[in-house]
């Protein structure tokens, strides 16, 4: 029990770090999802120029590691004169980064619906907006839900990278405790457990959604 004393003493600090991780992930997921949807719709229904711009954006972002992007923006923002608090700077980068992946998830969801569903909606006199909201989105989101939840779990884990640019969250909190206690194994086992709990809960939710999709409704 004495071996895990540093972890027991530091658990509250770690939990606060986990809370910050969740807050950061949550704040990033919302704009990432909205941007991802916009990109997906732009790719499917947009004109040639907007399609090309979105495809290029996705292509470029997917080819850059998140850590490189975070560091780049960390140094770039002060030069541009934009005074953004570090938390929101990180949220901005994470949202733009994950929007590229979410766009592909939503696009795949929408395109995987059979043409027959579009035909049926059009055959009933629905215009494009009605077709999307009544028929396409509800089904496409169900299809996209499992990979979407997967991406969210990925995003939670990716927040560990932001400690590099000095933002405080679970990984940073763990490192601080380690510096005081010199007990890296115990503390990082604790941090890993907290990351696992967050992602496990999400993946269970993803499985539940997948089950509903397979059930047909």
């Amino acid at each position, binding site marked *: 029990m004495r071996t895990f004393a540093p972890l027991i003493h530091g658990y509250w600090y770690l939990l606060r770090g986990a809370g910050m991780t969740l807050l950061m992930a949550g704040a990033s997921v919302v704009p990432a999802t909205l941007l991802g949807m916009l990109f997906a719709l732009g790719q499917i229904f947009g004109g040639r120029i907007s399609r090309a711009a979105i495809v290029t954006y996705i292509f470029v972002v997917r080819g850059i590691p998140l850590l490189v992007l975070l560091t780049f923006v960390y140094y770039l923002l002060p030069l541009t004169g934009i005074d953004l608090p570090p938390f929101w700077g990180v949220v901005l980068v994470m949202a733009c980064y994950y929007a590229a992946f979410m766009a592909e998830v939503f696009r795949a969801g929408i395109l995987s619906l059979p043409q027959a569903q579009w035909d049926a*909606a*059009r*055959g009933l*006199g629905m215009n494009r907006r009605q077709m999307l909201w*009544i028929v396409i989105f*509800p089904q496409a989101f169900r299809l996209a839900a499992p990979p979407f939840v997967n991406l969210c779990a990925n995003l939670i884990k990716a927040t560990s990278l932001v400690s590099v640019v000095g933002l405080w969250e679970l990984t940073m909190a763990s490192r601080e405790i380690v510096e005081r206690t010199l007990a890296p194994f115990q503390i990082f086992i604790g941090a890993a457990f907290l990351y696992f709990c967050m992602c496990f809960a999400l993946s269970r939710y993803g499985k539940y959604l997948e089950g509903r999709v397979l059930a047909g409704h």
Partner: protein
Amino acid sequence: MPDTEPGRMATMPRLMLEMRGVAKRFGANEVLRGVSLSVPRGQTVVVIGPSGSGKTTLLRCINMLEDYEAGIVAVDGVPIGYAVDEKSGRRQRMAERAIAAARETIGIVFQSYNLFPHMSVLSNIIAAPIRVKGVSRPQAETRARELLAMVGLSDKEKEYPARLSGGQQQRVAIARALAMEPKIMLFDEVTSALDPELVGEVLAAMRQLARDGMTMVVVTHEMSFARDVADRVVFMDGGVIVEEGPPETMFSTPKTERVRQFLKRHNDRYRI
């Protein structure tokens, strides 16, 4: 203009559907080659012909699910898809919104039912009347229940499509199309995907509709249905209408060799 409604074609008022010189190609493949077809109000026209003859494309052109390169289609005198400019005589594509509005007057039922799987039977039927036509929910539900009773599925309104048989799904699809109070109904091989035992229940619903005076264009391989219900039978092959006439003439004394061959082959295949 003979009518007050803007955009109406100068056409015989008794015609519910008028197609003139409709042509459609998929790449190099000419699927429809200047097809003209008129259906008077309240009549049932059955379109028969071999696979690939253009029957389904013809039906899909009527409500612009398939765009076409030439010709004009009008339902109850109102053009669908393209309107002819009176001065230049050129046809002009209508705005998407106008096309969508025009489709409200045309019901279509597909071979593979195409019900919305995420909605219950009742929701499938009331979605378009409420959201597209602006009918109130209680009114839409009352009408939906009447239609479900008509197709014999009153006890299924809460079910989801995945839990229904093919025949039941197809009858829900018919009810869904009727809920929009269309002026004309299009049926695209609606019994082709069904078990033989389930065909009868769908055809019975269609017979009832024909008796009630609904204008219908039916693409089918069900010759007995064509013989019993059709006011006129149209035979298509190679993207053109080869022959048309009343069922008694078409099935007993067809004028063209092509129709004779087709019917002989069909009868040979289905003779037990």
